[in-house]
C-alpha cells in the first residue's frame, strides 16, 4: 500500500493494538451498562434521591479514580517510550552517531537497508536541494553524477511537472528552502513530510531503499494552485 514504510507499520500496529484494547474496554463497558442498567419501560426511579435545589449525595471511590488516573498514565508512558526510538530515526542527526553517517565522498555508496526494527541505515548520504515556490518545486542535484540524481520533467495528468530521479540504495538529505510562502514536501512513499519555510533551511531524509515512482505533493496550503503543486520522484 502506498506510503506505508516498515517503520510506520511497526509503530502503527503497536498503536492500533493499544487502541483496540482501550476501545474494547470502553465500548464493552458502555454497551454492557447501557443495556444492563436500563430503566424498565415507563419507570423513572430515583436511585440517589435527586431533588431539585439539593446538591446530590456524593458518589465516588478514591481507589477507582486513582486507578483510572494511573493506568492511562502508565499506558501513555509506554506509548511515549515506543515512540522515542523512531523519533531518532526520522530526524536522525548527521555524523557517526546518526542513522545515515556522514556525507558520501565520490565513489562511495550509501548501501542503505532496513534493519530488523524497520529503520533505514546507511553508510553515508548525498545532499540535494529542494526549493518550493508558488506553485512548483525545483530540484537541484548539487552536481551529483547523472546516475545518482537527475532532474527532468514528467507529465502528470496533462501538465508538465518536475521529475527527480534517484538511485536505489542511496540515501539523500534534502536541504529545503522556499522563495515565497510556506510549502511542505510530502513524500507518501517515504512516509514523511516537512515544511519548507521562507528564510529558513529545513531538512528531510529521503532514503531511496526500494524502486518506486510516486507523486510528491505540497501539504501546506500555499494559495491558488496548491492542489496542483506536484512533482514526481522516481527511484530506479
Amino acid at each position, binding site marked *: 500500500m*502506498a*506510503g*506505508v*514504510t516498515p517503520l510506520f507499520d511497526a*509503530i*502503527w500496529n503497536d*498503536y492500533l493494538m493499544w*487502541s483496540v484494547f482501550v476501545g474494547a474496554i470502553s*465500548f464493552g463497558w*458502555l454497551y454492557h*451498562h*447501557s443495556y444492563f*442498567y*436500563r*430503566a424498565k419501560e415507563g419507570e*423513572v426511579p*430515583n436511585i*440517589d*434521591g*435527586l431533588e*431539585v*435545589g*439539593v*446538591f*446530590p*449525595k*456524593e*458518589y465516588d471511590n478514591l481507589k*477507582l*479514580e486513582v486507578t*483510572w*488516573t494511573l493506568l*492511562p498514565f502508565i*499506558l*501513555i508512558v509506554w*506509548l511515549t517510550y515506543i*515512540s522515542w526510538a523512531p*523519533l531518532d*530515526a526520522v*530526524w536522525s542527526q548527521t555524523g557517526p552517531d546518526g542513522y545515515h553517517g556522514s556525507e558520501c565522498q565520490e565513489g562511495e555508496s550509501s548501501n542503505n537497508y532496513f534493519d530488523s526494527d524497520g529503520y533505514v541505515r546507511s553508510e553515508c548520504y548525498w545532499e540535494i536541494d529542494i526549493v518550493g515556490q508558488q506553485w512548483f518545486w525545483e530540484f537541484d542535484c548539487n552536481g551529483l553524477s547523472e546516475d545518482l540524481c537527475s532532474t527532468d520533467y*514528467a507529465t*502528470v495528468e496533462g501538465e508538465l511537472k518536475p521529475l527527480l530521479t534517484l538511485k536505489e540504495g542511496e540515501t539523500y538529505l534534502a536541504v529545503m528552502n522556499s522563495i*515565497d*510562502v510556506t510549502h*511542505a514536501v*510530502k513524500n507518501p512513499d517515504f512516509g514523511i*513530510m516537512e*515544511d519548507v*519555510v*521562507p528564510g529558513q533551511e529545513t531538512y528531510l531524509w529521503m532514503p531511496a531503499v526500494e524502486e518506486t*515512482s*510516486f507523486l510528491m505533493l505540497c*501539504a*501546506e*496550503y500555499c*494559495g491558488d494552485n*496548491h*492542489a496542483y503543486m506536484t512533482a*514526481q520522484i*522516481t527511484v530506479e
Partner: protein
Amino acid sequence: MGGSAVSRRLALISLMAIAMIVVPAVTSLPSGISGVKDTGCNCHGTEADPSVTASISGLPSSYNASETYNVTVSFTGGPAIDGNANLGGFNLWVSEGTLATLDSSTQLWGPNEASHTTEGNDQRSWTLEWTAPVSGKDVDFILHTNSVNGNEGDGGSSGDMWAKAQVEVTGFGGELPEADPFKVLATLIVVSSVLLSIVVLYVFYRNNPEGFEWERFAPWITEWLTSTDHKKIGTLYFVQGLFFLGVGGIMALMIRVQLATPGAEFISQGYYNQFFTLHGTTMIFLAAMPLIAGFANWIVPLQIGAPDLAFPRLNALSFWLQPVAALLIFTGVFSGGGADTGWTGYAPYVVTENTHAGVSMWAAGQIMLVASSTLTGINFLTTMAVMRAPGMGWFQMPLFTWSILVANLMLFLSIPAFGVGLIQVFLDRTIGTAFYDVAAGGDPLLWSHLFWYFGHPEVYVVIVPAFGVISEVIATSARRSIFGYKSMVYAMAGIGLVSFIVYGHHMFTSGMSPTLRFVTMLTTMLVAVPTGIKIFNWLKTMHGGSLVYRTHTLWTLGFLVTFTLGGISGMFFPSMALDVHLHETYFVVAHFHYVLVGGTVFGFFAAIYYWYPKMTGRMLDERLGVLHFLTAFISYNALFWPMHRLGVVGMIRRTHTYYITTDDFQALPEWAADWNMLISVSAFLFFASNLLLVVNMIKSLIRGEKAPADPWGGWSFEWMTSSPPPTPSFDPHNLPELKDANEHVANEPSRLGQMFRRLMVDDDASEGGSH
C-alpha cells in the same frame, strides 16, 4: 514597354508550367490556415464568393456529453482554369469540445481549431474527429474553405475564392459546471434567512395572533434587538449558531461535491480555497462558539441561582459584535474574493499579495470576535465568582457551569495572543508593517506560535462545555449522582491547564526547534489522562443506575462512542514517527471531526433535547428525535470514518483534487475514489438528517406539549423555575438556597485546606507572641 510585359508574362507562365510539373498540387496555402474565424480568408478576396459552397457533415442536431463524432468538412464550386480542378484548404473552429485528427491530411492549431496539412492540401474534403464537451452548451462550428485555381503557384492567391459555413449544434442545455458557486451559496443563504424569518414570525403569530399588529409587533422586535436579558440573548446566540451551522454545512457540501470524484471541476480552485477557509472559520467561530455561548447564557445563571449575568449590557454588546463580525468575515466574498488562507491563516501566505482581498476583512471580523469573546469571558467569570446562590460553594456548582468556567478561563487567557497575531496581520496587509514579511526579517513561525497558543486551547474551549452537558445528562438519565464530582472538576481543570502547553503538536513538521517538538510530544500524551478520567467516570456513573432512554440519553451515548473514537485517534499524533506520516492528511480531518462534530455537536444536540423544554416551555417530539439520532449517527460515521483510511494512504487536506495511481506514478489507490464518493453521499445524508432537528423544534414551538418545570428529574436550580423561566430568572430579594445532601462533607475543609491551615499561624497566637 508592351514587349517587355509580354515577355515577362511568358517567363511567368513558363515558370508556372515548371512549377505545375514539379509540384502539381501545391496551389493553396500549403501549410494550413489559421486565425481566420472572424476575418474570413481575406487573402483570397475581401468577400466570400457565392459560387463556392462549404459544408460540414456528420454532426448531430444535438450532441451527447463526451461522445465522439466524425466531422467531414468539404466544399464544391469555385474558380476553374484548365488543367486544375478547383482544390483548396480549410480552417475549422469550434466553440466547445475538442478536435482531433484522424489522418495526416489535417492538423490542429489547438483543441478547438484545425486546418489542412501540406499533405492534405488541395483536397476537397477532410474528416476530423470532434469530442463533445460535458458542459451541455450550444456549440458553434465555423468553417472557412478556400477554392483555389492554382494560377500563381505556392501561396499565390489571385482569382481564388473562399466560402464560410456556420453550423450550430444544440447542447442539452445545462451550464452547471459554469455556475458561480457563490451565487448558489448566496442564494441558499438568502433563501434560508427568508425561510428562517418566516418561521420565526409564524411561530410568533401562532403563539400570539393579536400581537401581529404593528403597534404590538414593533415593541416585540425592539425588545429582541435591545434586550439585556440573559435568556433572550441566549436565544439570539442560539439562532445565530444554528444558522451558521447550516451555512458552514452548505459550504462543506460544496467541498464534498468537488471531491466526490478525482479531477472534478465542479467548483474552481479559487472558490474551493475560499470554501474550506470559510467552512472552518464559520464552524468554529460563528457556529460552535455561539451555540456554546447560547447555552451558557441560558443555563449558567439559572444553574447558579442568579437573576441575570453580572454585566447584562456587556453581554448584549458581546452578542451584537457577533453578527457584525460575521458580516465582515463574509464581506470579502461580496467584494471579489473571500479569505483563502485556511482557518489557520498561516504566515507568510496570509500577508502576501497573492491572497484574495477578503483576507483583510476576514482578519478584521475575527478581531471583533476576539473582543466579543474577551467580554464574554469577563462577564461569566465575574458572574460565577460573585453571584452564586447562598449555600453554593465552588464545589457545589453544577458540572455544566464548571465547564463554562474552565472554558472561559482558557479562552480569556489564550485569545489575546490570537488578537495580537490578527492585528499584526491586519497591519501588515493594510499599512505595510513587516511582522511577517520574511524579506524584512519577519518570522513566519511567530504566527504559528501565536495562533496555536490560542488555537489549541480554543478547540478545548469548544469541547469542554460539551463535557459539562454530558455530565449533566448522563447523571440525570441514569438517575444517579455523577460519579466522582470532584475528579470531574479536577479533570476539566487539568485539561484547561495542559491545553496551554501542548500546542506544539500542530507544528511538528514546521521547522520548529526539535527540542520544543519533543517537549510538546510528552505534554500532548498527557491530555489522555484527564480525558480518560472523564470517560471512565461517565461510564461508572451508569453503573448501578437505571438509564432512562430519551433522545438526549441517546445523543449522550452516541457522544461517548464518537468522542472515545476521536480521543483514541488523537493518540496517534503525539507519536512523531506517525505524525510525520499523518500530518495534514485526512486522518487529521477525520480525527478533529470526530471530536468536534462527534464531541461538540453531538454534545450540544443532547443539550438541545435536554434543555429545550426548559427554554421554550414545550416538549420536543421524542419519535422525531430518535429518528434524528439514528439517521444522523449512521450517516455521520459513514461520512467521517472512511477519512481515517484515506489519510493513512496519503490523501492530503485542503486540496482541490486528489491523484489516483497511474502506470507512471503511485498516488492514492483506486478505491480511494469510491470511498470519496461514499463520503460525499453520506455528507448529504448527514446534512439532511439534521433538518429533522429543525422540523422538530418548529413543530414543538407551534403545537408541542406543555413542559413541566422538571421534566427529566434533574437537581440543579434551573429545574426549580417554571418552563420557560420568568424574568428576572430568580427574585433578587428572594434567592433560592442550595441545600446539600452531604452536609458534613461540604463544611469540612479539603485536605489541601487543612494543610494550609496548619501552616498558618493563627491571629490569636501571633498576638499572644508579640506581647
